[in-house]
């Protein structure tokens, strides 16, 4: 078989189809429309079944903890009467140390059920350890493909630690240098082994997080007698936010504001060999968050089940220095030492809490484990070795790849709003590049995709000379 780059990429669809056991074509119709909800019922799992599976395999039922001292610190710089209660869902306590165990649990369960001998996932994040851990429980073989090193063989400490964790759970780790052709090796491995593609973006990868949304609602009611006002989700590929929001919607009629938060890495190119080791966050950042929210189907399956734009009410960014600062604050004020990437949403919540009243509730819906390599101390040390200037000042002066700025006073921690209307328009622009005609079904689909209405979509379509077929 021809295993050149172009030849393997041309076999992409058939390799994918075989490796996830899902016929994506059945959900497609008209020019752009696909039946998202039908795809999300793939496997016919109810949320109760998902929770049962997770309970059986060391996942879920993590504690919701109130961060009283962090909230008190926020109140020091809030207007009188403001500064909401802040809770964290301590997802680091899942087997393998992050909420990703929820996603892996359903993928590996399904892989086993469908008779696959092993699972493969392309991930440099916590998801690798999550898949490896769940695969171990099911007796499945496991390969994790990571983008880990620059071309000099210098590894990002966080990713090196994640490789160790994968190997600790018995997985084979295939490590690559920087570049999107990781996908090429991933496809070759799927073809060679016939293993299940435990992608983060299959319906299983998303429905596994719905339990997290449901637990947040239940835990909050038990702890406070009330429902949360706002839930903040660290946003990269969009799955975390999508699954959490879906779980919340399934559990309450109350409208709860869903906020996405990403680390601002503006200016650093994700596929650049030079930039690779200049970033101190390898996930939860804008380098994934923005491209994926605008074009969710850029993932490693034909149709991604992670579609953040459907659910997000507000999207903010925080800077690297702010996240490291709040990670340290969590450690010394709350006695909870956790990894920095998972605290992206906590840094945002610290600022957003100041907009809400004292009796209101913000939930930060994840934490992640920390250790050598993926501790803020390790990341800051690595940054300094790479010539990044670390100082106290105004974090809004931070230049990703050049500086990390700790806030010189806590009032300088500011979550910055991204313009969701312009993001929605960019999403539509991308969709309109695929067709010159839309059906009425497509219009409804695009309105759902952007969480807008048909008028909004129609107005945008006009700008691109897209014709809308007459209603039938």
């Amino acid at each position: 078989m021809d295993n050149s780059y172009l030849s393997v990429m041309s076999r992409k669809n058939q390799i994918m189809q075989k490796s996830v056991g899902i016929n994506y074509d059945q959900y497609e119709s008209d020019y752009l429309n696909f039946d998202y909800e039908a795809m999300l019922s793939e496997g016919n799992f109810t949320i109760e079944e998902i929770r049962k599976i997770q309970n059986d395999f060391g996942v879920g039922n993590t504690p919701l903890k109130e961060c009283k001292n962090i909230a008190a610190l926020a109140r020091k710089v809030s207007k009188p009467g403001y500064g909401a209660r802040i809770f964290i869902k301590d997802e680091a306590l899942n087997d393998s140390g992050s909420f990703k165990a929820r996603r892996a649990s359903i993928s590996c369960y399904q892989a086993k059920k469908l008779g696959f001998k092993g699972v493969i996932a392309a991930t440099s994040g916590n998801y690798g350890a999550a898949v490896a851990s769940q695969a171990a429980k099911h007796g499945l073989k496991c390969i994790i493909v990571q983008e880990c090193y620059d071309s000099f063989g210098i590894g990002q400490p966080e990713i090196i630690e994640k490789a160790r964790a994968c190997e600790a759970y018995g997985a084979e780790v295939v490590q690559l240098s920087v570049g999107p052709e990781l996908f090429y090796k991933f496809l070759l491995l799927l073809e060679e082994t016939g293993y299940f593609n435990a992608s983060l973006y299959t319906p299983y990868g998303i429905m596994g997080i719905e339990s997290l949304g449901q637990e947040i609602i239940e835990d909050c009611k038990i702890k406070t007698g009330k429902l949360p006002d706002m839930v903040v989700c660290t946003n990269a590929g969009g799955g975390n936010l999508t699954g959490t929001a879906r779980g919340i919607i399934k559990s309450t009629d109350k409208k709860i504001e869903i906020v996405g938060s990403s680390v601002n890495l503006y200016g650093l190119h994700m596929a650049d060999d030079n930039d690779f080791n200049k970033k101190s966050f390898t996930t939860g950042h804008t380098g994934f968050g923005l491209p994926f929210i605008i074009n969710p189907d850029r993932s490693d399956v034909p149709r991604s089940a992670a579609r953040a734009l459907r659910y997000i009410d507000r999207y903010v960014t925080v800077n690297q220095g702010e996240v490291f600062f709040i990670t340290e604050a969590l450690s010394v004020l709350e006695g909870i030492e956790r990894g920095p990437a998972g605290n992206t949403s906590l840094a945002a919540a610290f600022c957003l809490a100041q907009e809400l009243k004292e009796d209101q509730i913000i939930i930060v819906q994840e934490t992640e484990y920390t250790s050598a390599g993926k501790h803020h101390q390790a990341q800051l040390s690595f940054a300094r070795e790479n010539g990044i200037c670390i100082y106290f000042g105004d974090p809004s002066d931070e230049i990703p790849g050049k500086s990390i700025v700790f806030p010189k006073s806590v009032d300088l921690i500011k979550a910055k709003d991204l313009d969701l209307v312009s993001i929605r328009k960019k999403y539509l622009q991308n969709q309109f590049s695929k067709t010159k005609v839309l059906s009425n079904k497509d219009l409804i689909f695009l309105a759902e995709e952007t969480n807008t209405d048909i008028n909004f979509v129609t107005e945008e379509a006009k700008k691109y000379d897209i014709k809308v077929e007459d209603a039938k």
Partner: protein
Amino acid sequence: MIKKNSWVQIKKVILKPEERAHNLPEATKKVPLLMWVKGYLLEDANIKDIVTVKTVTGRFESGELIEVNPAYLHTYGKFIPEIQLVDKMVKSALFGDDYNG
């Protein structure tokens, strides 16, 4: 000499610069795509030899032998004094100047 069945790490070029995707940044385009894999050595060999290994999933990969018994040497890094200043700042703000010493 590294004995057969030793646990080793190999390195391999999987795409030469000219074989890589077209839409890459300049810095990435000019270097090959490299792969590192660990496994059991199939035959006795020396460092830098081209060898074949059997991985823990039972796959075979060939490449340059670079390390035997590859270790995890990642750490918490060098001490970052700024982190202690964060401690002082947040503790003194909440609990008073005793924590600002």
